[in-house]
């Protein structure tokens, strides 16, 4: 009976493990197998040519670089705005629940819908943004936000800032609420300035939450697809093309399942490397 009890956990864990294998393991293994499958049926049963072709792909380096810039700027701005809004919402604000709800709104709007809305707002003829700037006299003629090579990626990042900061804000707000108030009271008694309080109490208190937010947001932003696809389809040229849109294109538009799988595998490896600090931190806690 005791032996049975000891092994009872298997029955509780098994359904979860099987589900994970089904929804995560199966597609992952299929992708890896596809990535080594030749495009044309031939003599060889597997090939690494898709991986070597990535290096020869005229767009891959640029797209990899674009993805890095997009993720860096998106996550960076999410952290800054997310922390700022979280601190405001953590303060004694009147109608706090209402402001929390408003701050969360961009996050609940689906990516594609947000992309279409902002594409219209950026439109050089009908767009609200140009209209406001023209009426305020800040510009003399309409700006081509999504067609100007210098502005296209930044415009997408700007929209992604609006779309994605509530996620970081939520995590950091939870972290802020967990910092004991007595620490701030002690700092105030000691005469610490707001800046010192921020750097010596708030930031150290949020350290773990910042790592969590960073890791999760990086993973989210590398996978960001609908927003970019609905706004620019990767254009002009490949200036806003990122790995997620490129993989989609290779798979669903060009029907190159094997090559798309190779890109996915590379993307997964990069994401795993990025997630290592997060995984390490979780394991240290345990």
């Amino acid at each position, binding site marked *: 009976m005791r032996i049975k009890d000891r092994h009872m956990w298997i029955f509780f864990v098994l359904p979860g493990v099987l589900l994970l294998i089904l929804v995560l393991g199966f597609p992952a293994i299929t992708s890896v197998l596809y990535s080594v499958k030749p495009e044309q049926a031939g003599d060889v049963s597997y090939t690494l040519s898709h991986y070597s072709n990535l290096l020869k792909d005229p767009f891959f380096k640029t797209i990899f670089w674009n993805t890095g810039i997009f993720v860096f700027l998106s996550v960076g701005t999410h952290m800054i705005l997310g922390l700022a809004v979280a601190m405001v919402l953590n303060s004694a604000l009147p109608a706090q629940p209402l402001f929390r709800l408003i701050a969360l709104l961009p996050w609940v709007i689906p990516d594609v819908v947000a992309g279409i809305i902002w594409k219209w707002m950026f439109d050089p003829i009908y767009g609200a943004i140009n209209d406001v700037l023209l009426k305020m006299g800040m510009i003399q003629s309409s700006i*081509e936000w999504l*067609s100007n090579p210098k502005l296209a990626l930044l415009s997408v990042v700007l929209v992604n800032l609006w779309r994605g900061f509530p996620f970081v804000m939520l995590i950091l707000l939870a972290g802020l609420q967990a910092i004991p108030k007595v620490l701030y009271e002690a700092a105030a008694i000691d005469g610490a300035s707001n800046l010192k309080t921020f750097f010596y109490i708030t930031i150290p208190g949020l350290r773990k939450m910042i790592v969590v937010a960073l890791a999760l947001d990086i993973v989210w932003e590398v996978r960001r697809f609908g927003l970019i696809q609905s706004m620019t389809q990767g254009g002009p040229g490949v200036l806003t093309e990122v790995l997620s849109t490129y993989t989609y294109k290779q798979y669903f538009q060009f029907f190159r399942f094997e090559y798309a799988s190779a890109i996915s595998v590379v993307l997964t490896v990069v994401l795993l490397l990025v997630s290592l600090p997060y995984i390490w931190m979780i394991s240290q806690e345990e």
Partner: protein
Amino acid sequence: MRKIVTLSICMAVFLALFSANLAVAAQVTLRFSDWHLTEDVWNKSLNEGMDIFHKRHSNIKVVLEPVSYKEKETKYTVESAAGRAPDVFHVHAFSLPMFFSKGFAKDLTSFIEKEGPGFMDAWYPLPIDLMKSKGKIHAMPGDYMTMVLFYNTEMFKAAGLNPNNPPKTCDDFLDYAKKLTRDTDGDGKIDQWGFGTLGSKSPGFSMRFGPFLWSFGGDYLTPDMKHSALDSPEAKEAFTFFVELYTKHKVIPPGLTAMGAQDVRTQLAQKKVAMIMGSGWTPPIVNKINPDLKAFEVLKCAPAPTKRKQATAIWLSSWVMSPTTKHPNEAWELIKFITSKEIELKWFVDNRVTSSRKDVSGVAPEILNDKFASVMASQLPYGKVEPQIKQWPEIIDTFTTSLQEAIVGMKTPDKALAEAHERINAILAR
């Protein structure tokens, strides 16, 4: 006696229920998917069509599955790979080679043979050829239209142009576009442009650019479709002409690289542009966007402008039967119905799309007397289709990428086109 009556009633009820169950059991359900189901005018028309089908085939129930225009290939690819594609679905003809290469379209030869000799004679030969994979028909042709130049007659009049004399040559076209690019409210800023076109990476781009390229005498690929033909002087000239409409002559509204087909139709509907390339679908959609424009009265169409030869792009759609359908005979009945003479004419009357059937587009008075359809039908002999090879989506995406780089000034037209030429050759050599 009472017992006998009760027993009889019970048996009658049982038999009635049993026969009803049998009828339900015998009914076949087909899944039918079409991007047109997301468009108001088409949706109504297709639903009416299916009502007629249901009346004639009481044993078949058709379930309609809408899909967005952009996502249809994605949806059908995923579902086909999983063996769960709709029984009948609608795709561009240029998507067919990819579906054929993956085995996602059922061979229809046996069904066609059962219809008897001469069944396919009702269709134009070109669409039939494009439905073939390894010599066998794997899809049935649907809409068959040419791209023509749509223009707003009122805007022509306001710019001092004769609406009965649309531009015939590319030089005329540029001249007209310049005259139609105006500041209409006198605030010193241009608020109306001569020509609206797609510049985004969208499936409709090549339908709008192709007529210019072919009319200049250029082409995307060599006749054997094994190499890029974009290094020809004619292709360079066409590419530069198109780019300079935006960069030099500024007759196209700003933001070209982000403009999709619906954006451009909206510009026409809102009188922001005076001319666009379009086809049968253009007047109903523009009318829907802005009924105040009175599109069917105000718009006219003309053959695509000509440089060295008359040429235009052909739009051709196709009906595919999934190889995994459990009801191939019923699916064939549905395909046969939606491509029948009667129903193809209905699609035209309701949606203004001309048919790939000769006995509809070539003879129906409704088409021959229609001011739009008659022009489109007159251009069929000059129509060309995009290369029907599985690499085509990748090739046109590469080409559009280079065109966008030239449009936004990242590269000169010559350099951008030379890069497209090299990259397309690399794709074809793979």
